[in-house]
């Protein structure tokens, strides 16, 4: 059962091949047996899962089943889950049991999904390798010596290892797309405002966007159907009708105009990865797509701009972790200041502290104009680059990452080098656009991700293009050895 996609499981459940309870029991057992190999889950919730599975079977018996009824999923551990620990991969929230459900969690619950647990992640979503997790790094199922990417590394590893068919992730600078690419699965970062952020623990509010991760585009469409939509609890969520993302999946992409940003194919791109992307371009050409080179001249500024804006917002967003109301509090504080300093000093890991310091500095009196304001100006320029490109083409295509998954520990002492691995994904968050990563082949034995970037709210077109590609390729079905 674990080798099936969500769409296949949905059909099998409907056909009565097995029950949601059986499916859930099977996957819980598989997690029990195999999670140790990849460390994809921080928390597994068998009681809740079995209860939800029974409820799903009962709903089906009443004739009330939807496409996601009984489908097992897992949530990245920054989505608040009522009554279940929501740790954000941090010692700071190791003891935090959320008293409420995030909107995404609630919607997927209403759609009938069965939550198996919470997935591993970089601490507060800050990282590209999952190595900053308080719970130890998740590992890449394709090679346990390598990182699964981050920050939604546990989510990507869980899907790749066939522990769960679909998961939620969040993407601030590439945190869905990069781990999807590195683990050989599909991931979609929706347009900023398409999916509610309510209950998704904030890293950088103006960049964070939740989205689905699964084996293929069709599954992403099924999940996005349930996740997307206006939420009055999130002021930045946009009130705009949600199309059925599965409706246009099979439409022809003949005549689709795809732009190739030349900056995404320049130095820094690994030659083997480049070959995989070139092959994918040929595949799309055969499907009838037309290609055109475009330029995004300001994209080169996206990493520095991002590393001002994201830490600035984070430094403020993470101020609430002060040991006063919830989360970690140091032992025997001498006074208030001691409580603040030690609770935060002991509760946060090194990368989180580094970003809080950077962000605090960028917002400080006398530096604000030079850093934060300037970064926001750059951000507008980057957005304009995309707007111009989309005047000529329908979507953009390029690699998701400059190289395949690196080795655990390889970059921990060189944060800037690690930051640069997100060079192709970050600009999309700064511009607020939808983008996805899908498996496009292998380089050095590791999966390579292909990135598609769309216009605002053009998720359906991205999913259509990805689905058509996946109809004629098999990369998305490749399973890491030992996890068949």
């Amino acid at each position, binding site marked *: 059962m674990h080798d099936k996609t969500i769409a296949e499981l949905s059909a099998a459940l409907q056909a009565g091949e097995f029950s949601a309870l059986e499916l859930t029991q099977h996957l819980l057992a598989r997690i029990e047996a195999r999670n140790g190999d990849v460390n994809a889950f921080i928390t597994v919730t068998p009681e809740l899962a079995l209860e939800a599975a029974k409820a799903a079977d009962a709903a089906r018996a009443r004739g009330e089943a939807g496409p996601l009824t009984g489908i097992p999923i897992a949530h990245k551990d920054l989505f608040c889950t009522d009554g279940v620990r929501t740790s954000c991969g941090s010692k700071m929230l190791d003891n935090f049991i959320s008293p409420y459900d995030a909107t995404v969690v609630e919607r997927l619950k209403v759609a009938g999904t069965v939550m198996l647990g919470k997935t591993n992640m970089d601490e507060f979503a800050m990282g590209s390798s999952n190595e900053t997790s308080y719970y130890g790094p998740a590992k890449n199922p394709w090679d346990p010596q390598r990182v699964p990417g981050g920050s939604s590394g546990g989510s990507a590893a869980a899907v790749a290892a066939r522990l769960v068919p679909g998961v939620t992730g969040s993407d601030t600078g590439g945190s869905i797309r990069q781990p999807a690419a590195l683990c050989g699965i599909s991931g979609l970062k929706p347009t900023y405002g398409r999916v509610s952020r309510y209950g998704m623990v904030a890293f950088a509010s103006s960049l964070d966007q939740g989205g689905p991760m699964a084996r293929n585009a069709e599954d992403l469409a099924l999940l996005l159907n349930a996740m997307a939509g206006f939420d009055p*609890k999130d002021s930045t969520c946009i009130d705009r009708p949600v199309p059925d993302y599965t409706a246009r999946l099979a439409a022809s992409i003949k005549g689709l105009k795809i732009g190739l940003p030349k900056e995404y194919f320049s130095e820094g791109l690994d030659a083997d990865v480049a070959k995989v992307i070139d092959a994918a371009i040929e595949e799309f050409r055969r499907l009838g797509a037309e290609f055109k080179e475009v330029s995004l001249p300001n994209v080169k500024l996206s990493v520095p701009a991002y590393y001002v804006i994201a830490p600035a917002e984070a430094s403020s967003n993470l101020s609430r972790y002060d040991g006063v*109301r919830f989360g970690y509090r140091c032992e025997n504080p001498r006074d208030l200041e001691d409580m603040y300093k030690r609770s935060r000093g002991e509760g946060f890991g090194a990368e989180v502290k580094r970003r809080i310091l950077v962000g605090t500095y960028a917002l400080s009196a006398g530096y604000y104009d030079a850093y934060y304001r300037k970064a926001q100006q750059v951000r507008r320029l980057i957005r304009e680059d995309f707007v111009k490109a989309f005047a000529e083409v329908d979507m953009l295509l390029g690699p998701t990452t400059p190289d395949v998954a690196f080795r655990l520990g390889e970059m921990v002492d060189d944060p800037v080098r690690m930051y640069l691995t997100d060079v192709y994904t970050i600009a999309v968050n700064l511009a607020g656009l939808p983008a996805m990563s899908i498996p496009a082949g292998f380089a050095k034995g590791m999966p390579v991700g292909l990135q598609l970037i769309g216009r605002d709210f053009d998720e359906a077109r991205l999913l259509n293009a990805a689905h058509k590609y996946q109809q004629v390729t098999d990369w998305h079905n490749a399973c890491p050895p030992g996890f068949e």
Partner: protein
Amino acid sequence: MEWETVIGLEVHVQLLTRSKIFSGASTAYGAEPNTQACAVDLGLPGVLPVLNEEAVRMAVKFGLAIGAEVAPRSVFARKNYFYPDLPKGYQISQYELPIVARGHLDIDLEDGTTKRIGITRAHLEEDAGKSLHEDFAGMTGIDLNRAGTPLLEIVSEPDLRSAKEAVAYLKKLHSLVMYLEICDGNMQEGSFRCDANVSVRRKGDPKFGTRVEIKNVNSFRFVERAINYEVERQIELLESGGKVVQETRLYDANRDETRSMRTKEEANDYRYFPDPDLLPVVVDAELLARVRETLPELPDAKRQRFMEEYGLNQYDATVLTATRELADYYEHVVRESGGLAKPAANWVMVELAGALNKSGLELRDSPVTPQMLGQLLKRIQDGTISGKIAKEVFEAMWNGEGEPDEIIEKRGLKQVTDVAAIEALVDQVIAANPAQVEQYRAGKDKVLGFFVGQVMKASGGKANPAQLNELLRKKLGPAGG
């Protein structure tokens, strides 16, 4: 050496919305600690603020009332600092782009002139919670019921030149926000709080002196005392060769002094930046028009109208328009009495105000309604009762004995206007007091009062005073030789 005082005030006005500025929790005062704080107010991981539109409308209303510019687009910013009763570690406020800018308020000075005080800006923000240092031996309790209550911070220009002017400005502002029904004005409960920026300079010096901020002076009296203390302290300091340090000081009402809280060097760097969780606040022409329609007649305009329409002097008009409630009450009495504007003013300002004062009641709790008072004035006017008897009726109304006519009837207080009856009493009194008759006729005009009093007494106060006077003069004949 002559010194000039320069004062600017920052007033925090708690807006009268039912729910908080960024959450659905109630803003009602006095609930059990932490029972009116929802997930958003607690700053739980993952929660997001959603702006209360009512708070925006109230800020716009204030902006229109002070002739200010209402920004078509204003922006919420985060003010970052750590404090246990500040759940998120930042306060959502407005910084670079406030919703209201460049307005003014005219205040009355003691010499009878008015002075225009500039209002630099007014911005929306959320209140923090409360730290409770008592009752928790060695620990601090946190009550987050107040966290997220909407505030309008109103910042004046440094246009005020004395503590008295500062108080006049505050009273005017206090009256205005209550007129606008955007604040309950309750200073004890902290609905109207004031910080004062005070500096002194030598008369004629174009430059301002170093200013000191006095925090949380929460009654008109304390504002005056705190400023006077601070001005004296600064002058003494400067005259003895010292320098004023820019700092924040706290007023201690018990000791009537200000004490240093923190200097500029110790001040926080708040690291303001636009709150990415909230969209810019857009106030379009339509919203402006809708809010403008809800603007009541403002205190200055009402006072002017009272002077013109009711012939009141400036003092009476000022007193009667001090609150919207009192002005409404007064106008109601005038209508009910059939237009007896001046008597109505006297009765409201003297009898009613006195009774309220004595009993400690608020106007809204007055047992004497405007209908009752208006009817009473009518009965004086039509001669049913005298002014003196009316006071008795008023007291009876105050004690809940009923409508004026009912009381007059029940107590038999109707004036005697039957000439024959009064004549009989007059005759009796004249016959009983021959000596006084002699005096009167000898030219002691004042003795007439004696006769009036005697007859009145004999009538039980019910004789019509005008009729009585006339009869007495007729019977006694012309005074004087």
